């Protein structure tokens, strides 16, 4: 069994050590220590069963408080689905993005891939790559309650990142220019707060 961490907003959300990860979640009430996670989203997913071990308060990346559940993973039928989609995104970007955007984006995606491939993602986010105009490429992970985005501009100084939530949770909100955050710093943030 592997120890894992997931970040959740409120300890009050727990009832008998169960937590609804998504609106489509189901909880197993036969065993109070066991939760069944059926994540939402548009990708094919597998059910994961985990044991909740503890809940503890932690400072969040951008200030404020959050809570972490530590749990033991019982079974994951398929791992690294997030990375499979990421790999497809990289492939797509290599084929479709203008050279200037490709040069900027790939180091970030490769770093994120390396940081996250050791995790069996419990919540495979909706993932979008789009080109709002010829000079811009937008990469977004759309989680149920928050989204993380990378916006690459042909003018590299304008390229940016952002994390925003829907107001129902107290996870981080923040944004900044990518020139002030290298791929390693950003992927560290993602692997610790967004994907895991």
């Amino acid at each position, binding site marked *: 069994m592997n120890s894992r961490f997931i970040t959740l907003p409120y300890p009050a959300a727990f009832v008998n050590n169960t937590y609804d990860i998504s609106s489509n979640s189901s909880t197993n009430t036969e065993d109070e220590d066991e939760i069944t996670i059926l994540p939402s989203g548009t990708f094919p997913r597998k059910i994961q069963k985990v044991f909740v071990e503890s809940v503890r308060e932690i400072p969040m990346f951008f200030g404020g408080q959050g809570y972490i559940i530590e749990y033991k993973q019982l079974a994951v039928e398929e791992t690294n689905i997030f990375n499979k989609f990421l790999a497809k995104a990289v492939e797509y970007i290599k084929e479709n993005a203008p050279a200037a955007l490709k040069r900027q984006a790939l180091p970030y995606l490769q770093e994120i891939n390396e940081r996250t491939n050791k995790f069996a993602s419990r919540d495979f986010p909706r993932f979008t790559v789009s080109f709002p105009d010829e000079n811009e490429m937008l990469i*977004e992970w759309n989680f149920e309650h928050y989204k993380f985005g990378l916006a690459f501009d042909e003018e590299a100084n304008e390229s940016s990142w952002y994390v925003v939530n829907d107001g129902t949770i107290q996870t981080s909100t923040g*944004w900044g220019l990518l020139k002030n955050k290298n791929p390693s710093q950003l992927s560290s943030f993602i692997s610790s707060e967004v994907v895991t």
Partner: protein
Amino acid sequence: MPVFPETLLRGIPKKDKAYFDNEGNPTVTVFRPSEDQLKNPDLSGFTDISINWEDNSEVEKFTLETLSSSGDGTFHFKGGTVRLSLDKLEIIKNDVNWAGKIDYRRDDPPLTDNIYHGDLLLANENLKTSDNRKAILGRLSFAIIKYIHPH
């Protein structure tokens, strides 16, 4: 006093080349102000993003079949439209991170050619830099409850 129904529609003039989400995933681009709006910010301190208040079931068709100003007979909103919840907008307005940055209004008196017309209002100060702009547009996208494909 203008009446605000429970939902509103934001038309999407351009079809994004979205990947991985064929359901019309609401990216931050949905509410993007025009280049002209960004270059010449309104003196009121807010930039308006056109919407239609959904007073009745006809508004969806009315919005989707709005003709392009090019005069070629095609529909203007080639990317379809998104439906937003007024309740969710209110949550954003009361969100400590965004209070005073996002608002809405309705034309009063109504426009003669579009009685449903209104605007989302985004604070200019949050549109000045590309990162801040993405964040506020991303936050706003959480008010979307449905994507509606173009006609």
